[in-house]
């Protein structure tokens, strides 16, 4: 069995140091601004920080991947081109793109730069993936979180590039790169502004009894009683009154993806890289999750069963799922 690359998130230089020190094979991170899909206040890297981060990681044998995976609005391509140019100049090991124009620019201006296709591209069929490989020389595809392991295995047999699959972290019920729920509520696009549920539009109200209401823009997303675990204020994880039911998680519950039990299957299915979600999370999260999956991957390589009980404390709503990977069909 091929040893997979463990690809880990970092939202700040401190997060990158934590990921590298915890045993990441590669760390993915983005520049400040809308060029990446985690454009939150206080997050991401200035060009100077990115250059230093690359040096830190490379000195320790870890790759750094540039997430430039949002979609430039019309006439605003300059920031995305600058991000690609900086990533190449700093010697980043791959550029992760979603937009066809950014992919074309990278392939044309920097033909030797390794190119990965972001999950945001939503390429889930061999035909789509082969198009990106043929036209832009994409070397790896990050698969959308809507496929079963059997489907991943089938795709692997029909494409010329590597496969990267999410194994842990936030998961929503959406068509990756096409979701407009947050944009509907806030006016800011997840895919072009790089932020789902922008913090500036999120409000929490807790009453004296400890009951918590979370709002996105003018919409109430959920109400948690004082003894309930809370979740992220994303519309796809909201609880609604519908014609069918009241207080109903109409799309998806607050839950995190955890594919630890499926790691051996994923590795046998031809997955080259295992991805941990969470650039918006803290350094403590990165250190804990990366260390746990470092041990887990190493254990799988030695046919041992990994112990991952500690990770439940870091999951949304204190619940975890295998999502579509385990065969789940959304409503």
């Amino acid at each position, binding site marked *: 069995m091929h040893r997979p690359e463990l690809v880990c998130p970092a939202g*700040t230089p401190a997060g990158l140091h934590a990921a590298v020190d915890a045993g990441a094979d590669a760390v993915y991170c983005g520049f400040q601004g809308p060029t990446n899909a985690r454009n939150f206040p206080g997050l991401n890297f200035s060009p100077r920080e990115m250059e230093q981060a690359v040096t830190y990681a490379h000195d320790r044998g870890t790759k750094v991947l540039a997430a430039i995976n949002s979609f430039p609005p019309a006439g605003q391509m300059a920031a995305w081109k600058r991000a690609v140019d900086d990533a190449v100049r700093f010697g980043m090991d791959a550029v992760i793109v979603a937009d066809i124009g950014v992919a074309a620019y990278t392939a044309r201006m920097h033909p030797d730069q390794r190119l990965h296709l972001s999950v945001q591209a939503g390429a889930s069929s061999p035909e789509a993936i082969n198009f990106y490989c043929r036209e832009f020389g994409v070397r790896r595809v990050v698969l959308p979180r809507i496929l079963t392991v059997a489907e991943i295995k089938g795709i692997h047999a029909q494409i010329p590039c590597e496969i990267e699959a999410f194994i842990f972290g936030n998961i929503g019920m959406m068509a990756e790169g096409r979701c407009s729920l947050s944009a509907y509520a806030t006016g800011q696009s997840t895919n072009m502004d790089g932020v789902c549920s922008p*913090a500036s539009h999120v409000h929490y109200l807790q009453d004296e009894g400890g009951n918590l209401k979370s709002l996105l823009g003018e919409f109430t997303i959920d109400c948690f009683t004082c003894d309930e675990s809370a979740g992220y204020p994303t519309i796809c994880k909201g609880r609604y009154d519908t014609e069918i039911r009241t207080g109903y998680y109409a799309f998806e519950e607050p839950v995190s993806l955890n594919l630890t039990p499926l790691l051996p299957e994923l590795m046998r299915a031809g997955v080259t890289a295992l991805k941990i979600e969470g650039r918006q999370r803290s350094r403590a999260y990165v250190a804990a999750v990366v260390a746990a999956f470092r041990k887990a991957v190493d254990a799988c390589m030695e046919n041992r069963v990994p112990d991952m009980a500690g990770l439940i404390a870091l999951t949304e709503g204190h619940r975890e799922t295998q999502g579509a990977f385990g065969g789940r069909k959304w409503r």
Partner: protein
Amino acid sequence: MNADSVDDARFLPQPGAFRDVPRMALAPVPLFLLQPILQRIVAGVVRCHPELFIRLGEGVGKRFLIDATNLPFVMLLRLDPDRPLLRAYRRGQLPAHDGRIAGSLLTLLDLVDGNTDSDALFFTRKLVVEGDTGAVVALRNAMDDTEGRLADDVVSGFGPLTWPAAQVLAVLREIRRRCQ
């Protein structure tokens, strides 16, 4: 300074009983005695971590109500490199603020030290955030990027009070360690 430097851990309050200790111990203390210490803390943040303000971005100058729920007072924090402020207020006299961050004293210390994930604390309802969420998120990320050095760096600038301040910090961390 780490937990090992606490001279004799046998005399530390046990974690469960610790919850009300800060409130009881500090209730009789006049706030005017605390204000110079708090101002020294925030001045230390400005001195030791000027990079924090770059990451804080639009959060610079915002007023954060730091509510350690087992203290008899709240603190108003304004991270402004030119006019930093950390000031205590009695609970019945809450000052105007842009955002509120509430949790137990040990939970908030854990966040400053970067030992725990704030999202996980939020999920488990141990951390409460209200008001300007954008400013609070920026503050969280800016503090997280100090790699857990913030408290030690600030304490190291306490001059003649460095040793006792470091002892207090070490005791709190030891209690927190026992709570885990």
